[in-house]
């Protein structure tokens, strides 16, 4: 009888609705936290957009001289840059701790999340937002506004693929950071994997030739973050949209699984800290 009651309570709790409510509240709190320092927020926000715009100028000059790179024209490059920026930004806005997971775990900072009844992985990732990521996120929208001939359908594709892109970024970053459970200090390899993912995603598919191209469809899935979305965007291939969603969900579930496996090796710590 008691066990049944316990089960019922558990089922009622931690429902999808409760997680959405928690995520919404965490997002609100995170935004409020970064807005405590408005000048810093504005500087990082516009600074990141300026940084991205500098690359756009670089590509404009290059494409003007070469006529195209790896089969991509200027508009293609700009879409990839804008889309990848927004996906990257969205991942870091909602899951601000994805690049800090290993540091937090090594310092014993997971205790706070393990003491709470929400999924510790989601709780940890959603407990922070990265200020400069807001600049990345908005940059993609500005690019879309500036690109010529973007109709409503292409806007819809852009919007519908942003979440899978953010999920893929989150999955790979989280998985790379979770290596710390198995390797101890894995910061070098984690940051290398993260850099690979971002760099490979920002260059045209045509420049990646040979066997390692398959890595971009598996271990470092830049293909699903940039190349396939560009194809969908160009050819309006709606059937590929749910496929990309499915792939992103598989990756994110695998990343969570890796974290959970690693969590068994967690040894806590006694460093003094605060939640920022």
């Amino acid at each position, binding site marked *: 009888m008691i066990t049944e009651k316990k089960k019922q309570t558990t089922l009622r709790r931690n429902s999808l609705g409760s997680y959405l409510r928690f995520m919404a509240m965490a997002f609100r709190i995170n935004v*409020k936290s970064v807005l405590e320092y408005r000048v810093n927020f504005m500087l990082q926000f516009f600074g990141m957009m300026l940084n991205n715009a500098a690359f756009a100028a670089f590509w404009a000059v290059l494409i003007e001289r070469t006529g195209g790179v790896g089969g991509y024209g200027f508009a293609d490059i700009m879409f990839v840059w804008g889309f990848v920026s927004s996906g990257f930004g969205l991942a870091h806005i909602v899951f601000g701790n994805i690049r800090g997971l290993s540091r937090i775990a090594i310092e014993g900072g997971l205790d706070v999340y393990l003491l709470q009844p929400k999924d510790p992985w989601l709780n940890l990732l959603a407990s922070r937002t990265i200020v400069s990521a807001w600049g990345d996120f908005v940059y993609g929208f500005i690019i879309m506004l500036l690109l010529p001939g973007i109709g409503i359908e292409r806007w819809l594709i852009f919007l519908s693929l942003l979440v899978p892109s953010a999920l893929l970024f989150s999955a790979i970053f989280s998985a790379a950071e979770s290596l710390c459970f198995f390797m101890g200090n894995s910061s070098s390899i984690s940051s290398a994997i993260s850099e690979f993912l971002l760099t490979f995603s920002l260059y045209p598919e045509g420049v990646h030739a040979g066997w390692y191209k398959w890595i971009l469809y598996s271990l470092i899935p830049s293909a699903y973050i940039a190349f396939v979305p560009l194809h969908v965007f160009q050819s309006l291939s709606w059937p590929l949209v749910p496929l990309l969603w499915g792939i992103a969900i598989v990756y994110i579930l695998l990343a969570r699984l890796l974290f959970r496996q690693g969590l068994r090796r967690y040894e806590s710590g006694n460093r003094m800290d605060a939640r920022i």
Partner: protein
Amino acid sequence: MSVIQVQQLSKQFRTRVSSQQKTAWLTKLFRPQYRSIDAVKQVSFSVEEGEVVAFLGPNGAGKSTTIKMLTGILQPSGGSSTVLGFDPAKQRRQLAWQIGSVFGQRSQLWFHLPPADSFRLLGAIYELEPSVLARRTAELVERFALQDYFDVAVRKLSLGQRIRCEIAASLLHKPRLLFLDEPTIGLDVVARREIRSLLSELNSVEKVTVFITSHDMGDIAKVCKRAIIIHHGEVVVDESMKDLKHRALAKKYVGVRYQEPVQFSTGGLQPLKATDRSASFEIDTRQHSLPELVRRLSGLGELEDITIEDEPLENVIADIYAARSEQAARNVTAGGRAKDAAAKSAGSGKEAAGADNGRTTGSGESQAAGGLS
């Protein structure tokens, strides 16, 4: 009804062995050597509902490790535990709904935001209805007197104010059991006193079972009804505060000051320190009669002042720690001798394996040595 039941709970950590040899970096790279450290060794105890239990021990005794196993943060290496009917190692999240915790060195409040915002997020984490959250928050704000700084960013609060908020936050979801790990660490005397009285009130009003670790004997003496002392990962004392205080009562400190110089003659009891007009004595009431000593001292001359004090509780506990450390050291030495003898009898000229092991091996070997003696 037991809310915590712990049986033979153990935790071992594996750590790399460092070597001073020149080629150590090479062997470390290809064949790293490890040794295990017993942080907690087969600890057993239980806590009843409504109790306030002090979990004491010196630094590195295994207090925090035990608490982390009881809250599901760490997986035990051996033994079992049940907390509120749940196995923390397997049912951590179910357990989390019913326990609260404050780890003095870790904050669950957002540093840049007021506690009010953290309470809102905690409300979402513990799935409290908005009306329930508002009512509970108001209740805690009043009880913990947080009104003046509930809307001030945590970074601007004093440590005492922050800890008050931390404890209040840990009670938001009405936990049945509260784990407090060094809650008064770094607090001044006034803040400590306030936290203690809040904890006592909490226990009596909300009937929350409290499991507390602290190095502050004031916390323990004022708040707790029972003390479990752990040392080198083992429970060495588990008794009521009354009994623990009784140990303190056995020893008295007597101070006397006379109007004129006197010659101290107290039947063989030597003063701790003395001048020609004053002296202080430490007396074990199980061996010497206190009234007899006072009578003798009164007879030595015209008394100006006399004081009789109990031994401070922290001295009693420090004596327990010291006694166990000495015993452990003796055991290690005896264990080392036994090991040497075994190595010699095996005809081995090499060092016995694990020669640089710390207390782990020492403790393990001590049992063998005990058997031999």
